[in-house]
Each structure stands twice: as C-alpha cells, then as structure tokens.
C-alpha cells in the first residue's frame, strides 16, 4: 500500500518535470490551485450549485465561477441541470476507482515478484558456483 503511493508520487514528480509547461486543460494545472482543490473537497461530499460552492469562500463569485469552469473543462467535475439550477459533482466513480486501484496494486506486486524471480535465480546460480 505504501509502495503504491510512492510510485504515484514519483510519477507525479516526473510528470511535473516533463510537462512543466501546460495548457489550462491539464488536470495537474487544475489542482495546483488551492481554491480549486478546496472546491473538489467540497464536491467530494455532495453535489452543489455554483452559488452554494461560492458561499464557502470569501472570494468574489465570478472568481469562483472561473475556477468551476476550469475544473469542468478538465473533466474533473460535471454539471447536471436540475430544474432551473445547475448542480456540480465530482466525476470520479468510487467503485471504478477502487477497481482501477486494485488493478494497479496487482501490477505493482506482479512487477515486484518478477524482480524477485531474478534475485532467486541469481542466488541459485551463485550457490551452484560455490
């Protein structure tokens, strides 16, 4: 489990270097901003209208709208019309995330075990030489 996070962190650091210059549509750029991260945290708990989101910040409403627009463009959140109001929600599907994570967890262990195969094979060759 710890390994999984280490691998993700490393990839993230590497991506930051490789993709240092980015278009606004890049999700990395989107979450680089603390206000946008705070919006994602709010939406993790429930779907909300732009007004309800803005109520949580001291920042002017048009600024919050801009942040919401960027998150929407990055496909991190999605909008749905309910009556006259537009509600925003996180796009991530929890169960899908868990299944994806399990696949990655499996692959990390598989890669580990393949390396262990090599270690074991080298140890046995060394033993035979002795």
């Amino acid at each position, binding site marked *: *489990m710890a390994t999984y*996070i280490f691998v993700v962190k*490393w990839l993230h650091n590497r*991506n930051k270097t490789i993709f240092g210059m980015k278009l606004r549509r890049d999700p990395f750029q989107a979450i680089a901003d603390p206000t946008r991260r705070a919006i994602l945290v709010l939406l993790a708990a429930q779907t909300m209208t732009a007004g309800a989101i803005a109520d949580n910040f001291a920042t002017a409403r048009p600024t919050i709208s801009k942040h919401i627009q960027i998150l929407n463009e990055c496909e991190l959140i999605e909008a749905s019309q309910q009556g006259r109001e537009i509600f925003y929600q996180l796009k*991530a599907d929890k169960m899908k995330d*868990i299944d994806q994570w399990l696949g*990655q967890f499996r692959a990390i*262990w598989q*890669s580990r075990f*393949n390396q262990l195969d090599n270690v074991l094979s080298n140890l046995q060759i060394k033993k035979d030489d002795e």
Partner: protein
Amino acid sequence: MTNSLQFDFLVDKVKNTITLRREFAAPRQLVWDAHTKSELLDQWFAPKPLTVKTKSMDFRDGGHWHYAMVEPSGTEYWGRLDYLKIRPLDNYTALDGFSDPHGNVNPELPRAQWDVTFQDLAKHALVQTIVTYKSLTDLETVINMGMEQGMTSTLERLDDLLLTLTK
C-alpha cells in the same frame, strides 16, 4: 521471464482483504531469505525504476524494517514495516506504514496488515500474502491520496508504466 508460475490475485471486498499467491522457482529457504533479509529485499521490493534503501532491519517479533523508496532523481519516500509474529520458514505477520526518515510512523495514514505464508510446492515454493485493510474507508483514503498526488492522468500513466513492468 517464464509465465508458467502460478499467480493468483483474489479480492474480498466484504472482509477488506487482498490475497496474492505466487509460486517461485526456488526452494522455500531461499524465498524466505529474499523476503526477510534486507540486502535481498533491497533488490526486488521497489517497482522499477524506484530502488530500495534500507536504513535499519530488525527481523524479530516486535522489530521493524525501516526503508526508503528512492526515485531516480534521489527523492526518498520512507516506509516502515513492523513485524508482529515470526515463525521462521513458515509465516510472518507485519504492519505496513508510512514513516519519516527517522522511522516515526505517520499515525494519521492507514496501515495494512500483512500475513505472509511460505509453503513447499515440489521443488518450488508458494508464497501467500494476505493484505488486510481495517475498512473500506482506509482503502479510499489511500486511493484519494493517489488521486491528490496527480489525479487521473498520473493514474493513466501508472497503468502504462505497470504494463511495461509486468511484461
């Protein structure tokens, strides 16, 4: 790389366990050593291109393995595995965790328990690793940490990377 070695991956979403069963083309003693001696763990425990650096290893009941996973750039991520109960050549249980360079475990991050069993399989050895999370919430915390670190595009690149690693 031979692909004929058994590899099972079983998930129990009710009990919050993940069971990995893997066969190794080596005698049980050697496979046990590779899991329990730091100089050998250093050689396989990190998925490429990360590497492992052991700071201290005290393989006994109540002891721990304090290590860093190191990026090619030199950035270090610290982890600590606390050994609970060891039955040489048969089984050990341990708690996985995140730590700092001094070995202090971060109590706010979830830990998973490992139950690792070694068996003879003709001339090979079979290792069963059961990873248990306290709750689905713990698992979600870890997933969300991954999401925070890089969101979806990193995770997609992780899939690509893992695909090349497991070939």
